[in-house]
């Protein structure tokens, strides 16, 4: 058994106040192991996105504990969470969410450059290597607005891997792609997971995508059900 990377216990998250309060996570428990590629499944409103947001340290739970790499993150302040997120967590969004005024390479090296305060040659080198690996060696200096949907999503995957994070959270990464592009992206994720041991948690509605993962985690009514 691999080491525990993420350990979530009795996670609660509610939105609103008084009578308008909505309880989204209701005592959720989850453990992710290093090197896993897991699918997060569940109907709309089940709490998948809220869970991903909390795991990505973009939101704090109402109560419960969230340990990653042995660090209790629910007690950390914004500055500490920002630095932690930059180093240890990568994101792939459904709509790629790249910076539109930058090239593919500039987008990929952004997480490193923002931490180091400049675009070092070493960062550029790794950025080029990542773009080559995702099959975009010829498109490095293209503005991202000139890339296709599949190419943009591959740039987003390369960006998520830039700082060699332990965990990559992917929210419907193929939801906006055609079948061929979706297949390419999933193969890429599987390859990186296999070669570099990066842990992936992929939120999806697509059972065929989920079937390609090592583990399927089902969430319903704010709890892990299977």
């Amino acid at each position, binding site marked *: 058994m691999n080491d525990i990377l993420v350990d979530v216990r009795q996670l609660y998250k509610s939105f609103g106040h008084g009578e308008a309060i909505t309880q989204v996570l209701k005592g959720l428990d989850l453990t992710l192991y290093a090197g896993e590629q897991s699918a997060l499944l569940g109907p709309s409103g089940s709490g998948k996105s809220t869970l991903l947001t909390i795991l990505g340290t*973009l939101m704090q739970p109402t109560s419960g504990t969230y340990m990653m790499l042995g660090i209790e993150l629910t007690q950390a302040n914004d*500055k500490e969470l*920002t*630095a932690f997120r*930059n180093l240890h967590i990568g994101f792939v969004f459904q709509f790629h969410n790249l910076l*539109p*005024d930058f090239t593919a390479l500039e987008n990929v090296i952004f997480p490193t450059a923002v*931490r*180091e305060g400049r675009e070092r040659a070493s960062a550029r080198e790794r950025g080029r290597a990542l773009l080559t690996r995702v099959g975009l060696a010829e498109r490095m200096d293209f503005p991202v607005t000139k890339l296709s949907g599949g190419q943009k999503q591959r740039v987003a995957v390369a*960006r998520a891997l830039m700082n060699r994070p332990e965990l990559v959270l992917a929210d419907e990464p193929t939801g906006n792609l055609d079948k061929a592009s979706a297949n390419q992206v999933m193969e890429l994720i599987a390859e990186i997971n296999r070669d570099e041991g990066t842990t992936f948690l992929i939120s999806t509605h697509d059972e065929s995508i989920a079937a390609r993962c090592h583990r399927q985690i089902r969430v319903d009514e704010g709890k892990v059900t299977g």
Partner: protein
Amino acid sequence: MFYAMKIALRYLTANKAQTSLLVFGVAVGVFIFIFMSALIGGLAEFILARTAGDLSHVTIEAESQDPELLLPAESRTVLLVQQKDSSRSAQLSTVDAFIPIIEALPGVLANSRQISGGGFLKYGALSRQVNVTGLEPDKVSAIINLDSYLVEGSTELGAGTIMIGKTLADDMSFRLGQTIRLQADTGIDAALVISGIFETGSGAYDRGQAYVSLTTARTLFALPQGVTKVEIKLTDLYDADDTAERIEAVTGLPASAWTEDAAQLLDALKAQGQTGLLLKSFALVTIIIGVASALLLSTYRRRPEIGIMRAMGTPRSFVIIVFVSQGAIIGLVGGLLGAGIGYLVLLAFPPREAFRPGNLPIDIAQGAYGIAILLTTIGAIAASILPARSASRVDPVTAIGQ
């Protein structure tokens, strides 16, 4: 920092039309600032040149010779009228020894030893009261530039010659070369030839002032030695108070600055300066509002991108630097552009040496270009703080979902 600057520049160049418009708006504000500085400064210069420029900046004058009043120690209310002693002029008998010291003081441009007093110009049955000033022949234009005001004759003052104002000459029908009689208030009179007629533009001056040589004045006012006053001109007339104090300290002679008798003029100049300051402040406030609103709009438009940056682990401080840098760049570039335009436009106006009544007295040297650029940059940075703080507080979850 470098990377934040790069992103700031990228954001500005990504929307060239909007950025150009914003920079141009800032440049117009800076141009107004510079134009107002040059106009207010030039106007002050012009007014001073037309008034205090022809005055003595510091005057050393003997104190009154009037006898002291002896009143009872515990007096009740006393009403009295005191007649000034006009029987003899108060004189500075020791001033000659101090002239080299005064000339060596910093900022002293010229000095003129003078004997002045009252008198009557007479021609036939006509008589007119005048103020008579005796000047050293080589320093006729040391204080008031008589050469520039001369309309007839010359400014050379010799024994037996006199210069009078044009209004006086017209009123009395005097002509150049005509011999007239001048009776001083000492009772001594002399026949003098009109060697020059001047016109300063000041009615009182042109009507009631006459100049003779210092030698002639000695005879008229029975002062074989010494002078009644020394007038001093400075390179910077605003140094008059300090210089007067220094002269008093060094020589022990009573010295007074022109400002003592020019409170109204100084008040007017001060009010004019404050008006200019107000107008310049309005220009600066316009720049700040313009930059702040443009950057707030940019912040709103780029909320999703800011959210992405934050999700990638970008600290709030980095986001602040990106937006403040945009403000600084807009301020600096707009400031430089406005200063350049301002300088080029001001070049079209005549230099201050050529100021004439009726023209806009704009002094290109007083454009305050450096201050305009500096204040604009600081103002633009200040204007960007609110948008920058707003950007740094963007919630990445909400912003990415937009």
